[in-house]
């Protein structure tokens, strides 16, 4: 692969190869000197048209841990409309000799569009509702760490599926590793279909015998748009200790962050032994190092 836009066309072997590299990177992060010279001479730009401190820091740290030079560009798409376009912005960076662009935008397709304009490598840092491939890779990595294998494991994704790029990318990725993926949420926040996932408006059905549960953040905008009622959501979709009794004993919990405690997730659960949230964040850097290494260094051998 030349860019990382989503997982369309990916094979199981490609995923496993990337995760294998990520495991090496995780070991690098345990060393006294958490840095390797692998990407010396490369320049990576984070180009965020939608603010996201966490994701940006994770990518920048990943690039720096590999000794790449990092520049970061942040602009609101709303200000882009008036002046410079996406294309102008990217071509300006291209002229500065950027090798890889980490692009985040609030509209689906911007990283895809970018591949038509720049010669460098494009990594999707999250585009609208469409995809967040490095998040899904770090989720898969974390799940494998916890479960050993995803073959035949049931993973439930709960919450606002319709607007979630995290859900879409996980639904593309996890089945490649053999997982059975269920998505659950209120009907107004479910898509009509998502190839690779079973859809249900009933949380219990998704949680039943699940090995792990991924809880998504509920955006305030959905309430403002009148699509759901908060109390109704909490009553029927909040993941709680009691509801988790339906899942396998000790089922793990994931959340892409940032969390609304006591809205999508019972507050105490986030700090329980089930929670893999901190491991997700830590693994994020290793996975992004692997992705940068795979995209920037040579062709697939």
């Amino acid at each position, binding site marked *: 692969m030349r860019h990382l836009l989503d997982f369309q066309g990916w094979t199981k072997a490609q995923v496993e*190869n990337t995760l*294998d*590299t990520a*495991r*090496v*990177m995780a*070991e*690098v992060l345990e*060393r*006294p*000197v958490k*840095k*390797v*010279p*692998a*990407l*010396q*001479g*490369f320049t990576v730009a984070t180009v965020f048209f939608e603010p996201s401190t966490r994701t940006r820091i994770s990518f920048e740290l990943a690039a720096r841990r*590999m000794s790449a030079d990092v520049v970061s560009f942040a602009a609101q798409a709303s200000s882009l409309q008036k002046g410079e376009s996406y294309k102008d912005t990217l071509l300006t960076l291209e002229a500065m000799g950027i090798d890889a662009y980490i692009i985040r935008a609030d509209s689906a397709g911007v990283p895809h569009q970018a591949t038509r304009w720049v010669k460098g490598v494009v990594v999707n840092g999250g585009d609208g509702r469409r995809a967040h491939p490095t998040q899904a890779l770090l989720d898969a990595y974390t799940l494998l760490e916890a479960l050993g294998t995803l073959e035949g494991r049931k993973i439930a994704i709960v919450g606002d599926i319709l607007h979630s790029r995290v859900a879409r990318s996980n639904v593309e990725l996890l089945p490649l590793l053999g997982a059975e993926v269920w998505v659950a949420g209120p009907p107004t926040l479910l898509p009509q279909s998502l190839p690779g996932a079973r859809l249900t408006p009933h949380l219990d059905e998704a949680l039943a015998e699940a090995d792990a549960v991924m809880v998504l953040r509920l955006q305030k905008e959905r309430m403002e748009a009148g699509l759901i009622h908060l109390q109704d959501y909490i009553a029927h979709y909040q993941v709680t200790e009691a509801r988790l009794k339906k899942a396998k004993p000790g089922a793990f919990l994931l959340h892409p962050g940032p969390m609304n405690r006591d809205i999508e997730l019972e507050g105490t659960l986030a700090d329980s032994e089930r929670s893999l949230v901190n491991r997700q964040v830590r693994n994020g850097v290793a996975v992004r190092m692997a992705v940068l*290494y*795979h995209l920037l*260094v*040579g*062709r*697939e*051998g």
Partner: protein
Amino acid sequence: MRFKAELLNAEEMRRALYRIAHEIVEANKGVEGLALVGIHTRGIPLAERIARYIREFEGKEVPVGMLDITLYRDDLSEIGIRPQVRQTRIPFDITGKALVLVDDVLYTGRTARAALDALMDLGRPRRIYLAVLVDRGHRELPIRADFVGKNVPTAKNEVVKVKVEEVDGEDRVELWEREEA
């Protein structure tokens, strides 16, 4: 590629490694603070064998680690094929140790240079030795081996292939010649 000659057979390989094992213990004046680090891929079984020989004649365990130098290569921005990165696993603290880096072939010295950098990032060893089964010359960096199984003068278009039982199913060192295009 065309086969040219056998440089070492299994028995010669064993003897060379056995000798290296002795030389290491001698140079270090015993096994105190000694540790071996094999460089992926074939340096690892060679390091393990040396450790075994030391155990046989000294009756003491020498720890062995494995080192992948891919992320320290100096040609990553130029190469065509991406090398697979592999685990580095050094299950002991290298600080204060006398480390012996073990590799199959010493050629340009670039792998040894990368390995030295990688080791420095892992801690501060008391000293680092370099042990290789074959030194084929053509150094591009000021690096030399402390322990050498066999010195083989080669031409640049020749390739030294080290085969080890654990990886290749046999012990043998061969000299091959690259056909000119």
